[in-house]
Every structure is written in structure tokens, then in C-alpha cells.
């Protein structure tokens, strides 16, 4: 038995330089939570459809106030203060609910995994779709205002590549020289240790 096989409550975060996604891998009962110090400006878009989601009061959450909404793959959140729109990708279908505190201006989107998947790892990824969604945000984040077509292309790009995430990358420096007459050359190899979150299998080059 190795340490990784143990039923540990944990979450791991691969932090990769230059990554457009934030990635978190959950294990054994830790509930994925997306937290913002800003409430939503508009209804969330779940799997491409706008859903009227009512959030329970975060200061005193009651079970009857919590409404679980199934999510197949993704959720799109548009926040009020920042005018940022984020995309949230899940590695498998989950149920989500939200908590909101209007006084402290806090919002949480919490995912409930199926009990049958309790032993399996769940991967959640987030990506910033737009920093100036309605054009009414902070001026400095609206300098490069995108047209809607650009945002649509960006959304599709995020969807296409959300499934594969780098885990523990390494850099190898290789020096090869075939004979003494030619100049030596170096080969720098980047191994991203790519993993497919839908199957949790390594992606071979």
C-alpha cells in the first residue's frame, strides 16, 4: 500500500507557469468550492444554458434553502464587482449549489459529488473568459475590450483544451553530438506530464 492509495482527504493543485487554467484535484470527500468576494451579476450559465439559481444565505445556510442543480461539464459565472466572467469545468457530472452573503459580498459555488464516486478523484478547472464582460467594469481591465466573436472563440478554445491538464512538468536538457566534425547541439525537452481529467489517464506524446 502506498501513500497515494490511502483514503486521504486532500486536494492537490498543480501550479504551472503560464497556465490559463487553475486546476484542483479533489479526493475523498473534500467538496470543490469556487469562492469570490463578489456576488453574481447575472444568472449562471450551466452547460450553455442560463439557469435561475437561487443561493442560500451563507451566514446561516439551511438545508431547505439549498437547491442542487446538475452540471454535466461547465458553469459560467459573471461577477458584479469585477465584471469578470469565469468558466468552471468539472471532470465528471456533479450537482452544484450556491451560498451568498450580500452583506459581506461573498459568493460560493459548491459541488456535491456522487457518493458512488467517493473514491475517485474529481478535477475542477477554472479559466477567465472575459475581464470586461459588460463594459462597465474597472477601466484598467477594459483596455482590451473584446468583440463578442472573440469571446466566443475564446470560450470554444477553453472548452476544447479543458480536458487535458499538465500535472508535474519537468525540463530535460539533452546534449547530443554525432561526430567530431559537426557542431554539438542541445535539445531542451519540456515534459508537461499531461493528464486527461475525464479518464484520469496520462496523455502520451
Amino acid at each position, binding site marked *: *500500500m502506498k501513500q497515494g492509495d*490511502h483514503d*486521504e*482527504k*486532500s*486536494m*492537490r*493543485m*498543480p*501550479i*504551472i*507557469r*503560464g*497556465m490559463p487554467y*487553475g*486546476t*484542483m484535484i*479533489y479526493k475523498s*470527500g*473534500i*467538496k*470543490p*468550492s*469556487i*469562492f*469570490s*468576494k*463578489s456576488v453574481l451579476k447575472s444568472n449562471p450559465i450551466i452547460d450553455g444554458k442560463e439557469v435561475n439559481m437561487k443561493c442560500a444565505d*451563507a451566514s446561516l445556510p439551511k438545508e431547505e434553502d439549498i437547491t442542487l442543480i446538475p452540471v454535466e461539464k461547465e458553469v459560467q459565472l459573471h*461577477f458584479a*464587482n*469585477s465584471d*469578470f466572467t*469565469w468558466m468552471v469545468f468539472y471532470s465528471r457530472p456533479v450537482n452544484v449549489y450556491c451560498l451568498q452573503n450580500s452583506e459581506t*459580498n461573498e459568493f460560493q459555488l459548491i459541488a456535491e459529488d456522487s457518493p458512488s464516486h467517493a473514491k475517485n478523484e474529481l478535477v*475542477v*478547472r*477554472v479559466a*477567465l473568459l472575459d*475581464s470586461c464582460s459588460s463594459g462597465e467594469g*474597472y477601466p*484598467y*481591465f477594459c*483596455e482590451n475590450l473584446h468583440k463578442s466573436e472573440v469571446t466566443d472563440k475564446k470560450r470554444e478554445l477553453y472548452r476544447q483544451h479543458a480536458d487535458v491538464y*499538465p*500535472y*508535474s*512538468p*519537468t*525540463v*530535460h*536538457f*539533452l*546534449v*547530443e*553530438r*554525432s*561526430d*567530431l566534425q559537426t557542431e554539438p547541439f542541445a*535539445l531542451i525537452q519540456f515534459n508537461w506530464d499531461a493528464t486527461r481529467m475525464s479518464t484520469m489517464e496520462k496523455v502520451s506524446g
Partner: protein
Amino acid sequence: MVFDWAKEILAMKRDMELVQSTSLSVVSNSNYDSVSKEQEFGSQLSLLLQESIHSHSAYPATKPKKMAALRKDMIRTCSIVVGVLVVLGLGTMYSTTNQFHKMIDFNNPKIVIDLSKHPMSTTSPMDITFPLYPERSLGSSPHVLSSYESTVSSVQSGDSDVAREDLQKVGATYPTNAWYENLLLFDPNQGYTNNNQVYSMPFILDVAGPIPGLTMNLPTKLANNQVVQMYNIPDFGLTIGGIGWQEAVEGASDKANLHAIYGNSMTYDLSEPPSELGLVLRYVSIKSLLELYLYFTRFF
């Protein structure tokens, strides 16, 4: 008499004051019978001195022959030294080339040097008298630094099964000024501070936040004629984290949505060794670690 003789000496050797004083000194301590001997002695002495002075002059009469011989000796010696050096140099080049040929199979050229498997040095800093600071003295996050030491040492030794105690003996230099250094200095028990951020484009990342997890902040620039600054608004960041840690510790509050409270029920360490591209950090509940420890220790 003595002074007349002395005057003659002075007249003959007026340009040699040293000879004059020496002769006078000798004469003044002599008697009349020894004057002739002293005179002969003085003459010989003055001649010797003259010869001595001439031998130090710029163009002595005997110089050309001696210099020519000396020059020949020097040329002969230099030729021998240069010859020996050339022979030694050719020998070394031949030996090195032979070793290089042995290292490379030219019929099937392969990678000959893989720095990832052959680190520049495996010498422990302690072995070369560099102090390795005790992890406790670093204070804020001893656990994550010790996990750093363990993971890096396992990479350096190439054997992941080596006992942790042995790895610590090997020693690993701390990642001072590495791009991820701030991430390793985080202590969940201290709660959220803004000292654990790294800028890895395009986001400013923080491993602490309102809940345990990864906070992503989009930076922007603030520039004028003299200064260009990068800044972010913390409230605009998004944290991807997790809840449920309070279940790991009995009696914890259900409202445990503060990082400091969560910090009592979990720990934070390095899951995978860092590289220039990235690293993997882990939050794990203390109860899980305790159960794991008990699982292994029940066999002993």
C-alpha cells in the same frame, strides 16, 4: 713618507675613492718595513676593484662571448621545454578523443549527456562546509520545506525508496529566489497573508485565500512617465478551493469558512518536486495523515 705614497696612490686612482680610503686605512696601521708590501697589495686591490667595476659596466670587454654562449643555452633549454609540452598536449588530446569515442557510438548516435539524470552535483552543502539551516529555524512552514527537501533529494538520488532520514543526510539546497519560493513559505496555521503570491503569467497566484485553495488574480499595469507598476485588486480574484475540512476534526465549527480555522484541521505540503515549469502543492487533512500513520505503525 706615508703621506707621499698616499698622494701617489691618490693621483693614480683619483677616480676611485673607495680604493683610496681602503689603502689609507691599511697604511695607517702599518710600519715603514711593510710599506712596499702594502704598496703592492694596494695596487693589486685597486686592479681587482677596477675589474669588478668594469664587469658591472654596460659594455664589458668580456660580455659578447659570454652572452652568446648564454643565448645558445637558453635556446637549447626552451626547445627542450617546448618539445616536452607539445608531446604532453598531443597525448592528452589523443586520450580525451579516445574517451569521447568510447562514450559515443557513432554508428548509432544517442544522447550522451542527460543533465536531468546526471545533476551537476550531488554533494551535500554540509559536506563542503556550507551551513544547511535547520528547517525549524526557517519558522513559518517547516512541513512544506521538509517535504521539499524530501522530494528534491529523491530526484537527486534517483531512488524514491530511500528512507527519508537518508535523504535528509544527503541534504538539499533550499530554493532561495526560486519562482515558487513564496508558495513554500506558506503556513496554513497562520491564515491568509499576502506574502505567498507568485506571478506566473498570466495570473498572480496565491495558495491562501478566504478558503483553502488557489486564488487567481488578474493583474493589470499602472504606468506613468517614470514608473510601470503591476497590481491587482484582491477582491476581483477567484479562489478554487475546497470545504469539508472541519469534518476531519471533531468539534470544529460548521461555520469554519475562515482559512485560519481550517488550518487547524489540515496541513499543506509539496506533493511533487518543483521544476522550472511547475510544482504540485497539496492540502491534506491531519486526520487522514494520522490514520495513515496508524495504518503503517500497526504492523510494528
